[in-house]
């Protein structure tokens, strides 16, 4: 009791919750209880083995029929696809969220989500976004080089960064710039001259009318290039390999992975150690994550409950906890919009900045009110935006959010004998109780059978700012 508040011992339960919130999207209290009979190294192994098998996101069919497949899409069909894309994207969005919630391959799914932000792309062809999403998932846990090469030839990415306009006669530098600034080295580790030379190497990399990568030799510049201190008639693949030879690429990636998986602040020495190991492993991302989850420091108090979860992570947690569902996919997308993160619509190629940038007064109020609104059946009125073509007389009523939730499994779990103690918040809140304000939270005791009290208590916990921290 005396040691009490200042020397917090991280409990086994908290560590397991931590592991699953970071490696995946969290688990329900019942799910965590079932995991408690295993040691942490066993759980880490299980996370990896359950991510070996996985399925593609297979929602949208190939949009071209057989005859079109040979010739490719006509401009008219392309236009039709663009017009339908937003609706397709809403459905794809909902499908992916479903997958995040219910797949056993949580580790792979979370990492796919990480790569979606790293290789941030948004084009108005939902099918191509699905193709890219499957590439990210398939190569997520393997060597980063494989993923980099695949994404450099990914149709959505090539279109997004205008590489179809990158031709020998007038190069477009967009892809070459971003591949260094955002995907490998990070800003400050290359010159404008390096960008120009790399752009030449990527000339002729384009997308054909069937929506596939195509190399057009006649538009490719096969002259000698000078790039990052090397000289040769490099093609695009050579450029990517040179970027992988640079140790800075490992440092850049480890720093980003650490910030996402461990802590927004990266200790310098640890960064160097991890980067060297990552580089020497041939950029094996799965192995990097395994070493992080198997380290003691990953479970240090200073790394637990210190990250503001992203809007998508928050929604998946709600789906897992109380089976949050939306009658229309559009309202799900509107909620994501209000919270600042719509899947398949990153703000730009730099992705979502995350951290405190998720939070403004308004988005915080929506986050904190979600539990209460769900339980009380209060629809949150959220306009779909940006609405460029919305009819000016759109009535507000149509934008109210009809959502359903089921609190039964959660309350049944806690009603089960012996489970309900003063420690109710520990099932939902990760950060140090010192940081919870002393509002005097008190909870129903073990003998409580009143479901309403229980729900009210849980809702109060989910309304705390600390629930937003993972």
């Amino acid at each position, binding site marked *: 009791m005396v040691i009490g508040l200042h020397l917090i011992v991280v409990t086994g339960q908290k560590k397991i919750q931590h592991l699953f919130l970071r490696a995946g999207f969290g688990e329900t209290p019942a799910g965590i209880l079932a995991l408690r009979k295993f040691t942490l190294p066993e759980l880490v192994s299980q996370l990896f083995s359950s991510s070996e098998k996985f399925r593609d996101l297979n929602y949208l069919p190939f949009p071209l029929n057989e005859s079109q497949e040979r010739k490719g899409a006509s401009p008219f069909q392309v236009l039709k696809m663009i017009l339908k894309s937003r609706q397709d994207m809403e459905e794809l969005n909902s499908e992916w969220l479903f997958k995040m919630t219910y797949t056993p391959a949580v580790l792979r799914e979370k990492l796919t989500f990480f790569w979606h932000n790293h290789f941030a792309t948004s084009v108005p062809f939902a099918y191509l976004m699905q193709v890219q999403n499957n590439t990210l998932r398939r190569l997520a846990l393997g060597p980063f080089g494989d993923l980099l090469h695949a994404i450099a030839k990914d149709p959505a990415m090539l279109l997004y960064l205008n590489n179809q306009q990158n031709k020998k006669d007038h190069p477009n530098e967009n892809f070459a710039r971003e591949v260094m600034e955002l995907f490998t080295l990070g800003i400050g580790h290359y010159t404008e001259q390096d960008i120009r030379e790399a752009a030449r190497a990527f000339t002729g990399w384009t997308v054909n009318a069937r929506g596939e990568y195509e190399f057009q030799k006649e538009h490719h510049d096969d002259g000698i290039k000078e790039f990052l201190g090397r000289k040769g008639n490099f093609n695009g693949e050579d450029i990517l390999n040179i970027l992988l030879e640079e140790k800075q690429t490992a440092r850049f990636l480890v720093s980003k992975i650490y910030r996402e998986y461990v802590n927004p602040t990266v200790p310098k020495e640890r960064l160097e150690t991890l980067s060297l190991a990552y580089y020497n492993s041939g950029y094996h991302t799965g192995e990097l994550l395994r070493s992080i989850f198997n380290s003691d420091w990953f479970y240090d108090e200073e790394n637990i409950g210190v990250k503001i979860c992203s809007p998508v992570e928050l929604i998946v947690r709600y789906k897992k906890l109380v089976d949050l569902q939306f009658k229309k996919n559009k309202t799900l997308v509107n909620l994501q919009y209000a919270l600042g993160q719509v899947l398949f619509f990153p703000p730009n190629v730099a992705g979502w900045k995350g951290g405190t940038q998720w*939070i403004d*007064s*308004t988005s915080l109020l929506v986050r904190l009110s979600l539990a209460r609104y769900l339980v009380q059946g209060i629809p949150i009125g959220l*306009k779909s935006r940006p609405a*460029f073509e*919305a009819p000016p007389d759109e009535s507000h009523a149509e934008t109210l959010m009809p959502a359903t939730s089921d609190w039964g499994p959660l309350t049944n779990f806690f009603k089960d004998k012996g489970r309900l103690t003063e420690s109710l918040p520990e099932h939902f809140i990760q950060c140090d109780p*010192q940081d919870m304000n002393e509002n005097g939270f008190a909870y129903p*005791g073990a003998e409580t059978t009143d479901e309403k009290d229980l729900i009210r208590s849980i809702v*109060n916990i989910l309304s*705390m700012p600390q629930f937003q921290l993972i």
Partner: protein
Amino acid sequence: MRRRSFVKFSALASASILVPDFLKAFGNHYRELPGNGRTLVVIQLSGGNDGLNCVVPYRNDLYYKARPTLGLKREELHVLNDETGLHENLESLADLFHDGKLGILHGVGYPNPNRSHFRSTDIWQAACGENENATSGWIGRYLDAQCEGSCPRPHAAVEIDDTLSLALKGNKMKGLAFRNPQTLQQFFQNPVLRNTAESYRHSHGNPAAEYLNKTLAETYESAGYIYDHSKIFRSKRLYPQHEFGQHLKTIAELIASGSETRVYYISLSGFDTHAFQLGQQSRILKVYSEAMKSFCADLADANRFHETVILTFSEFGRRVEQNASKGTDHGAANNVFIAGGNLARSGLLNPLPDLGKLDQGDLVHSVDFRQVYATLLVKWLQADASEILNGNYPLLNFI
């Protein structure tokens, strides 16, 4: 007896007693902003407003040639001078124009214009270059620049909407978005939110937790401030039933009530007129114009119009030539409207765009939109524009 210890939540009965103390302790923390009580209102016409059919060059054959069915005839316009007229539904703007309370700036845009709604909106809101990845907005950075020891409160910049636009997101500071002051206040009927906000104390512990708690406490305080300042002045004027009208009315009431808010932001959507443009644009311009009429009159009644500047812009103009669906496609440079009771210069502020010199069928910009922002920041809000806009843009003379 069953143990039901929600006791502390009932302590919210005492919360009302705590409020004044809390506000006092918290409120002293903040500085007044420079600018002599001046207010800036920014209206974004979303979707790409066809400025060429708003300010019509009715003597120009090229205009009628490019728009055989969409071109507006002189007799349909509010004539401004011997070559220019305003759309017939922009009646209140014509009145402001003749009163010396409206300036029209032609050909506002930026180099290498982007014709995507999303991208161009970001460029305008971030005030960034066409190749930069925008992560903060110009009004947000204006708030950042006011931080000296302490920052202004969130309600220093207000957006009337469900979500906060990029424009109002700074790196340190962010503005406050709400649909109306009552619904904002209602969030705090949740006792957890209210108790957490009221018991906020600065902590050096977990920085993420500290950030959330601090944001919540500031939001609570701003929500109370805004609610209090929405009741002092009640507009009796008629605003359009359209939500834009109601939202502009909210802004009028806040300004007239003396809210210390410096910048208000509001959007009106529906300007993406690819097909059957005439009816659609007329309807929505009418909403805009009627709302503006009551808005300016409310401000004048409250003796605040001379302390207010209203900027209206759109993310791009539209193609000069009409398309096959009796509409227009995405264009580039466009006109902006600047209204206010105390403009240094009003009327047509620069020459009409040259319809004979187009770039890919679009008007070429002659004024960088960041010059407009710089002028408002320096001459109206007394801020350092070069820091906020990350560059020096020549100032204009409408203020």
